């Protein structure tokens, strides 16, 4: 089943004031990382919904459940969880 997931990678190695090049590099690293599971950088680029580049390191992407499970086992990954809905209180 294909669903949207969040892949949380922790914090960034760039400093608190990243340049636009730094941010581009983060996004590129997300493409490369996810691409290694989806077969290509282009597949990853298509799957990614958000690339979190500033303070939170991670991305949201549309993935098949087995892909999400594979990614969760990677040592660079803190957690992988479904893009669930929350309620207003």
């Amino acid at each position, binding site marked *: 089943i294909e669903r*949207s997931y969040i892949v949380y990678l922790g914090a960034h190695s760039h400093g608190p004031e990243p340049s636009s090049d730094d941010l581009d590099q983060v996004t590129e690293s997300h493409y490369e990382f996810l691409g290694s599971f989806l077969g290509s950088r282009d597949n990853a680029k298509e799957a990614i919904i958000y690339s979190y580049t*500033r303070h939170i390191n991670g991305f*949201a992407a549309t993935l098949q459940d087995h892909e999400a499970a594979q990614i969760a086992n990677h040592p660079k990954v803190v957690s992988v969880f479904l893009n669930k*809905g*929350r*309620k207003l*209180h």
Partner: protein
Amino acid sequence: TTRSWHFLGLENDGIIPSNSIWKKARFGQDTIIGNLDTGVWPESASFSDEGMGPIPSRWRGICQNDKDAGFHCNRKLIGARYFHQGYAAAVGSLNSSFHTPRDTEGHGSHTLSTAGGNFVEGASVFGFGNGTAKGGSPKARVAAYKVCWPPVGGNECFDADILAAFDIAIHDGVDVLSASLGGLPTPFFNDSLSIGSFHAVKHGIVVVCSAGNSGPADGTVSNISPWQFTVGASTMDRQFPSYLVLGNKKRLEGGSLSPKALPPNKFFPLISAADAKAANASADDALLCKAGTLDHSKVKGKILVCLRGENARVDKGQQAALAGAVGMVLANNELTGNEVIADPHVLPASHINFTDGVAVFTYLNSTKSPIAYITPSTTELGTKPAPFMAAFSSKGPNTITPEILKPDITAPGVSVIAAYTEAQGPTNQDFDKRRVLFNSVSGTSMSCPHVSGIVGLLKTLHPDWSPAAIRSAMMTTARTMDNSMEAILNASYFKATPFSYGAGHVRPNRAMNPGLVYDLNVNDYLNFLCALGYNQTLIKMFSERPYTCPKPISLTNFNYPSITVPKLHGSITVTRTLKNVGPPGTYKARIRKPTGISVSVKPDSLKFNKIGEEKTFSLTLQAERAGAARDYVFGELIWSDAKHFVRSPIVVKAA
């Protein structure tokens, strides 16, 4: 809001005393409060920039109005963004109405104006609750991060968008983030709010979250991470009574904000919704006044009695009106007890408590031709007891980390009047074509921004205090007494516990001068995660610095302002460190011991000579052989120099 700040002691009948935190903290001047919610209605007077100076130069946010030229920011509303890709992934394609931070729901405008809205005179809901609407930090700058959209499967705000908003809000430079949303209690790193809050707190941002509206059942509290500031909801000293007069002359006090009234003193037939069920409906569904369950011919011209539960309270009013009722009585079930909420119903209505509901059903069942009358609503101030805990307010224990008491605190969250969208009627139902500038809404969503507003004041007053110090100041100065000087009750009129109110009801004026605080830094949070069993390699990934788990490590020594021991085997000694943020002084410990547990403090006196000085003490809890508590019991520890009272709840359960 038009009453809650009076109730919290910031003003007295419109006069702001010189010792009010508002004056001391310059009304939150130039603190930046961000809100993760449904966006903002920028035209609201609560967000006018009249009298505001230039936008702080440190602000890096934007006004994302490239696809909605009608949306504008100003020197008060300094930023607005929207995040919908995560929502789109869940629902499919989006139309053009999703390309704007404009609040078409009302919730976001209400919460943001409660936290940081201007003073606006003449605010009311159909004339009720009339007064000057005020935000907690009225001179603060505000920014809206729209992450919530029309509901899908009962959910409005998606993790991917929430995380994106946190990432950008930290970058933009907010000082406080208010998040009146959440889900089921979830492990820390599978929860966007928890992850986002962690990164925000790392940058010195205080993240205030609502506890949830899943009460009164135990273990329902959400937003349970120790770096979040979690807020329950309670009442204030204002009610909107609307009396139900039965044919047997019984007069029952209910509540309503309906602008419509029945003809004076004219009685109408009274019918239980179960007896007015449509042919194809069940009596249970009809009793709840669900859509399509009522028979028009049985309801027409009568006052309909509906039971609270499942569908929205205001929807029941609409269903009653659609079926031809002239009025509605909304009766509480046992769970919701005495919690009466005044809603802006579309027909004359009275929401009554459980006991009175039983009386109404007894009258209905014992009378051949029952009749009743509903009096017009009024505004009543200074009501007692207040506060009491709302039945809906989610409760502890914390199901993920029972060693951390949640919620942390309670604040006004029932019948709060604040700014609203003009894109929706006050009941948020399609049928409601009325429009209001201010609306009365209830929920932990409403209590959360009260705390955010107070945090904004403390940020202005004490810019050097950490998020944990600010939370500690507010928690240790909170009170557990109501305005009758009795213990705070819950909506069923039983004594509430820290599982409902955490440290107690917030007292802003006291919070600015707490004397001592239980401080925490990022390393403490990492140690906490280590103690929970997160491995060091994983922790390093979000620590941004080299990190080694300390040995030995203990969860119970985490320097939280509340003390919770969920499995007491024999005895345990917990340590805490207090930091002086006030004048030099000697503080002595006082204990109110939990039943069946003996408590001792060492040392029981702490002398502080200067600001920033830290002193550590230990607290030993021991189950007394006879009567050791098998269920949770509650006590408190108070450090006092006779001027400051630094109070921590103690929550213990013997294993």
